[in-house]
């Protein structure tokens, strides 16, 4: 791979990372590297500037003032014992080594392709009602994850953290995986209920996770065939997984 003309920036703080990112034009963000490095190796990605976040101090989980805040650089492995249903999703990402490298920020910015399911944490974070704090053109902004995902998930944005209310909930999770060296998620449903209000979301029904209508989970979805499963199979599976996620709702 011809890398000689690629400049590598290694910011030492979040502020330095935001300044180096600027409006994001020409910048390829490398957090854990689990998605970007294979793209580089295959020659599908030719960055002008690579922004390595490993030393930017963006990792860590904080519970403070009624919020749980998870830094974008936090590895997925740090969520094994996180709040449910986030922990359920995190434990099934890749494998032990990949989870230790892959980051929360990378996961919320990723989109599934026809042969590579990605973004397993998105549905769980949608169920928890998470917000995304990011920086880029126009400065810092915090928005609900569903809006961030609908707006292209990080195009022109550098994710700083995700956060949600630190409150008691009932949580449920149901998924079907295709065995591989990794468990590739065909479809997963995450549910969280708080003060009688249910939030239900799915990963595997679109390139990025979406909120579901609990009364009619298939409403508004355009399911597609891909390397893991057909649209027909997912149409059969989704209502069953919703039933299972709701049936196993437990105090988180």
């Amino acid at each position, binding site marked *: *791979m011809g*890398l*000689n003309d*690629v400049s*590598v920036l*290694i910011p030492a703080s979040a502020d330095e990372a935001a300044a180096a990112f600027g409006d994001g034009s020409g910048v390829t963000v*490398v957090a*854990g*590297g*689990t998605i970007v*490095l*294979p793209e*580089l*190796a*295959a020659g599908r990605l030719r*960055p002008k500037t*690579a922004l*390595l976040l*490993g030393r930017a101090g963006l990792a860590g989980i904080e519970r403070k003032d009624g919020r749980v805040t998870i830094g974008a650089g936090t590895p997925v492995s740090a969520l094994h014992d996180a709040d449910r249903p986030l922990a359920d999703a995190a434990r099934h990402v*890749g*494998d*032990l*080594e*990949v989870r*230790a*490298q892959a980051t929360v920020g990378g996961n919320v910015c990723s989109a599934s392709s026809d042969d590579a399911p990605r973004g397993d944490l998105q549905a769980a974070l949608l169920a928890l009602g998470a917000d995304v704090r990011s920086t880029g053109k126009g400065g810092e902004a915090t928005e609900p994850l569903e809006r961030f995902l609908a707006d292209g998930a990080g195009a022109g944005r550098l994710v700083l953290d995700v956060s949600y209310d630190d409150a008691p909930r009932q949580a449920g999770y149901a998924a079907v995986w295709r065995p*591989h*060296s*990794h468990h590739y998620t065909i479809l997963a449903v995450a549910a969280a209920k708080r003060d009688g209000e249910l939030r239900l979301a799915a990963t595997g029904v679109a390139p990025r996770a979406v909120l579901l209508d609990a009364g009619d989970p298939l409403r508004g979805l355009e399911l597609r065939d891909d390397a893991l499963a057909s649209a027909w199979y997912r149409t059969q599976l989704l209502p069953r997984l919703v039933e299972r996620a709701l049936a196993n709702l437990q105090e988180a």
Partner: protein
Amino acid sequence: MNLTVNGIEHTVESHGLRPLLHVLREELGITSPKAGCQQGGCGTCTVLVDGEPRRSCLLPLAAVDGAAITTVEGIGTPDHLGPVQAAFHEHYGSQCGYCTPGFLLATHALIARSPKAGREEIEEALAGHVCRCTGYVKIVEAVEAAVGGAS
């Protein structure tokens, strides 16, 4: 940039985005980490970075500048196999050998963090390692023996 590999310090000249795997193999001539799938899915490029198992194909060199890297050459020698290597040798835990470096290092790290690991923990630790000879039964037996020997 600097890497300490198996206790020996090296100054390396590769580009900061070059995967650690290729820096080890091509710049330093340490060929035990294999370039298998190069997508993080097969496990044979696994090395220890400051003692933790990591996919060297997924790590840009600049992300590990200054780190201590361990490959299988660092956990034993042909004349004095380390305990994990000895267990694999004794229990036929290696066939063609291509996946073996990854399995050995994953096992070495497992024993370091969990000296009494049970079957479930062993399976989780090996889950990202693929053996195309499908010698998993012997591999798991070797790992169980290595864990038993360490505890």
